């Protein structure tokens, strides 16, 4: 494939193809950072891909007590889904099972906007008639009595239809360790970008997929063109010096946020260099006909 070489790292002349998604954001607070993170990580578990999990979800960033409505430590979580109804279902299920249940937690809207999703308005019935509504300023909260006190939950949260899912970087290195080092560097850099999440474990996916399979019932299967152990047997995309490939998938509230995340991720990979990190970076697409957002790597070079 055509490429440019930046500081020894080959960057393919290709693009990441991303899709429009429905997205929302939440702020989860608790009495300590540990428990705010606990509620957030529980809620964002099993939320790596819309195909298998119903939604893609992850932690956007930490919030200091000054940034949260109740002046406690907080974590902002983003959720992405393919439809408003699925997003509502996932939000309700995850907050109800993972945040409501977590000691000392409270949950607030993390996104403004005209269009709203039900948050406390859906969960208040857990209060069995003892729930109390409080409207302060323009915001309405539900107070639901629970065994450790009260679960406070804002009535609604914002919905955006401008979410973008599927921004990605394919990171290729000589060894498993160097490829992982490059991916970790990119994840660390992207973590600082607001309004984006990387839904896969630690931000990294090692099992990139292609559409379809030889088996009738399987909709997606391993991306054989990027699997190093079978590269001699298939129509491989890998060069002889590549021994391992990892992918970073990025979902963002806006296309601009995804673009910025890809830019800083690419910069971090290039900064690490080919000796300790990746020798080549590419991106995944479906030929450009399916997704409306195309992020060309050549426009994102450091």
């Amino acid at each position, binding site marked *: 494939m055509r490429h440019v070489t930046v500081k020894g790292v080959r960057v393919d002349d290709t693009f990441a193809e991303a899709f429009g998604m429905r997205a929302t954001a939440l702020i989860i*607070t608790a009495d300590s950072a540990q428990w705010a993170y606990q509620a957030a990580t529980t809620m964002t578990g099993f939320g790596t891909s819309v195909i298998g999990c119903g939604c893609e979800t992850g932690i956007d960033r930490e919030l200091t007590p000054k940034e949260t*409505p*109740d*002046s*406690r430590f907080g974590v902002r979580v983003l959720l992405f889904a393919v439809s408003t109804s699925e997003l509502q279902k996932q939000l309700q299920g995850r907050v109800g099972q993972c945040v409501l249940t977590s000691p000392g937690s*409270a949950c607030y809207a993390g996104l403004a906007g005209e269009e709203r999703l039900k948050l406390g308005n859906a969960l208040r019935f857990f209060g069995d008639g*003892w729930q*109390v*509504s*409080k*409207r*302060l*300023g323009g915001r309405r*909260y539900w*107070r639901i009595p629970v065994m450790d*006190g*009260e679960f*406070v939950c804002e009535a609604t949260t914002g919905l955006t239809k401008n979410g973008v899912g599927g921004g990605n970087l394919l990171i290729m290195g000589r060894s498993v360790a160097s490829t992982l080092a490059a991916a970790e560097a990119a994840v660390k850099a992207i973590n600082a970008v607001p309004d984006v999440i990387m839904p896969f474990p630690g931000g990294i996916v090692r099992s990139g997929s292609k559409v379809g399979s030889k088996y009738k019932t399987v909709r997606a299967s391993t991306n054989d063109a990027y699997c190093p152990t079978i590269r001699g047997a298939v129509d491989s995309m890998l060069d002889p010096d590549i021994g391992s490939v990892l992918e970073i998938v990025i979902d963002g509230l806006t296309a601009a946020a995804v673009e910025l995340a890809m830019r800083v991720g690419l910069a971090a990979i290039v900064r690490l260099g080919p000796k300790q990190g990746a020798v080549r970076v590419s991106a995944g697409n479906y030929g450009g006909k399916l997704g409306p957002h195309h992020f060309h790597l050549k426009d994102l070079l450091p």
Partner: protein
Amino acid sequence: MKALVLTLRQRPDQRLDLSPVVPHLLAGKTVTEIEHIALQTTRQRVTVGDVFRVQMGDGQNLRIDGACERLDRIGHAMTAGEILVEGDVGSQAGRLMSGGRLTINGSTGPWAASGMTGGTMEITAATGDRLGGPLAGEMAGMRGGVVIVRGNAGDRAGDRMRRGTIIVEGQAGSHTGSRMIAGTLVVRRGTGPLPGYLMRRGTIVLCETADVLLPTFVDCGVHDLVAMRLLADFVTAYSRQVAARLHGSLRRLAGDMAVLGKGEIFCPPS
């Protein structure tokens, strides 16, 4: 633009109804038209020009100087803009107000903020009985907005309140929050007897313990609730002194069990 200033010439010899003197009704009026607005409450006609010296300015930004307690219904049903009153006013100040800001640099008579649905009203001195309460025959009192009283409030503050927030920096009289339907009422100093009398829902916070509490309020223990942090944060914009009293543990009493019993009174733990 400069404020439109009405300065009272002398104490009027009858009570005056100032309900036509609100920003949305003054918009587009000339000085002459404003001076001809009738204010009388008896058969003897009195106009703005008879009792006030009018200094023309932006009707959205109204000031009434030298007010006295014979001026009733100031800021009646105001929707936007600002009214600043220097001096005491009579009854029903800010009644049915739905937006904007009304500041009384003085005290008010009864039924201040009665049936208010939005906006902000500030009273820097004392206010009379039935703050925010309904007039006879009305189902609900205050239904939104924020009222802040820097001085004391009379009896039955927040009577039949349905929504919104009342903050009293001084003391409140007897039956504070009587018949409350919902909403939030915070009193920094003590109250008279029987706060929350027949309240259904809603929250009353007493930063100092009441004179006599009703036996129909049941103790629910001492708690440090997240909801109080949200309330403190909201109240900070209006009164830092009151907000400071909302932090830490408070005793929660549920009531009034003589009626629905889903209301609550928060008071100091001991």
